[in-house]
């Protein structure tokens, strides 16, 4: 009985993951069959790889719901109630840092960026150089997201309006765009959107909304959101600085 129920849960999860991927499969098949009129290149690899993506995504989300999310939420709430500013700020930074360093999309994009940089001759060709460039990118993003969450939490505590932070932040982005090497700009702009996905968004939203609802005089709706907007912006700044340092 137990085993059957387990199997059913797993099947359901697989189905959900498959439904998430279905739109992509439809669009890609339509183009291959009707527009390009060409057979799929390496169809075996693509099918096997897609299966791994579905399976991996399913396990990953299931695992997050069992482990990381419940603990993260409890931690954020008990820290907010504990009232120690130092520990709350340290936790905010560490949360931003550690969730972005493990973010799967960021890992993938950083590796790809390393490959391109090496093909274009911006960095050396040896795998270790590519890897250290990719890791450098991810560390810059992680520091950036950590800083963003730290500033965002201070904003919630002080009740600063979000758009002042955003406006001045993008002012800095524009100035850095002029100063930074051309080859880093595109990837810098992209990393913001990449850093905020599967792990970061739910945990960070829980932190913001949890804080805003514990603190008197804050509205969870107008003050609780906004952490992600900062987490999208800050990596642009940090990655451009990283680019200025290494190219």
């Amino acid at each position, binding site marked *: 009985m137990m085993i059957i129920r387990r199997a059913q849960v797993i099947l359901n999860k697989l189905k959900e993951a498959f439904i998430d991927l279905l739109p992509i499969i439809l669009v890609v098949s339509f183009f291959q069959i009707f527009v390009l009129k060409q057979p799929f290149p390496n169809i075996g690899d693509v099918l096997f790889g897609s299966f791994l993506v579905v399976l991996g995504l399913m396990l990953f989300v299931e695992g997050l719901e069992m482990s990381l999310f419940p*603990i993260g939420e409890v931690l954020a709430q008990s820290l907010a109630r504990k009232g120690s500013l130092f520990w709350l700020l340290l936790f905010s930074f560490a949360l931003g840092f550690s969730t972005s360093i493990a973010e799967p999309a960021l890992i993938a994009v950083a590796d790809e960026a390393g490959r391109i940089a090496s093909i274009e001759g911006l960095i050396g060709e040896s795998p270790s150089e590519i890897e250290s460039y990719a890791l450098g990118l991810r560390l810059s993003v992680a520091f950036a997201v950590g800083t963003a969450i730290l500033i965002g939490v201070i904003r919630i505590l002080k009740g600063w309006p979000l758009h002042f932070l955003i406006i001045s932040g993008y002012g800095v982005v524009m100035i850095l765009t002029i100063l930074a090497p051309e080859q880093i700009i595109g990837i810098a702009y992209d990393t913001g959107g990449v850093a905020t996905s599967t792990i970061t968004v739910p945990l960070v939203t829980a932190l913001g909304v949890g804080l805003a609802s514990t603190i008197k005089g804050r509205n969870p709706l107008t003050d609780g959101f906004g952490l992600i907007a900062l987490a999208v912006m800050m990596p642009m700044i940090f990655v451009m600085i990283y680019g200025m340092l290494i190219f």
Partner: protein
Amino acid sequence: MDLTQSFINIFLNTLRDVIPIATLIVVFQVILLRQPIPHLKSVLIGAVYVILGLVFFLIGLEKALFPLGDTMAKQLSDPAFLGTVGHEQVDWYKYYWIYIFAALIGFSTTIAEPSLIAVAFKANEVSAGTIGQWGLRITVAFGVAFALVLGAFRIITGTPLYLYILVGYVIVLVQTIFAPKQIIALAYDSGGVTTSTVTVPLVAALGLGLSSTIPGRNPAIDGFGLIAFASLFPIISVLTYAQIMEWKILRSKNNKL
């Protein structure tokens, strides 16, 4: 053999990536708050799932989504497919299949995005029903579709990324002044939410593939930026949507008076 090798490599890297979160939780929960971790067993099983899931996911990306986005971008921008000769400069509108592909991928993946569904639900709650869930999701999906089309156009024409981003954020700024206050933070957040784990690698590969086939483009300079667009335009479309809804409500109130 090759597969086992990459499995072991990715597995070890993933372990290293998950260590910071694990340390964070242990330090704060056990040492600082002096509380045992609740449901320890299921947390540990969950952690194993997270690591295995990441490993499978990354191997799958490398085998399927990255090559797929790359080859499709190359096939769609191939001179033979476009019916042009060799390395001549092609007018930007000849790449219309690329634009259609970008729009469809953007729209369809955003509609299915789980975190957007969650945000739409919250937005409906915040606005006391003014903002419909489907209305918001379709608005955001159009925002992403438009963003990817414009991003592809930028790569094809080779115009500088920062100009688009600058203009985009100026529009956001102006809208921020006029949009209903309650929606602003949520709209800003929706930009980061739409670019999900599956979309990002596919879209990144599309940009890199495009910039490496189109004559005169450099992947390191022109290949990135699609995701930045996809994080920017939903802010604009959500703010616009909120403004339209507010205007509609105001008008219907005025009519009643």
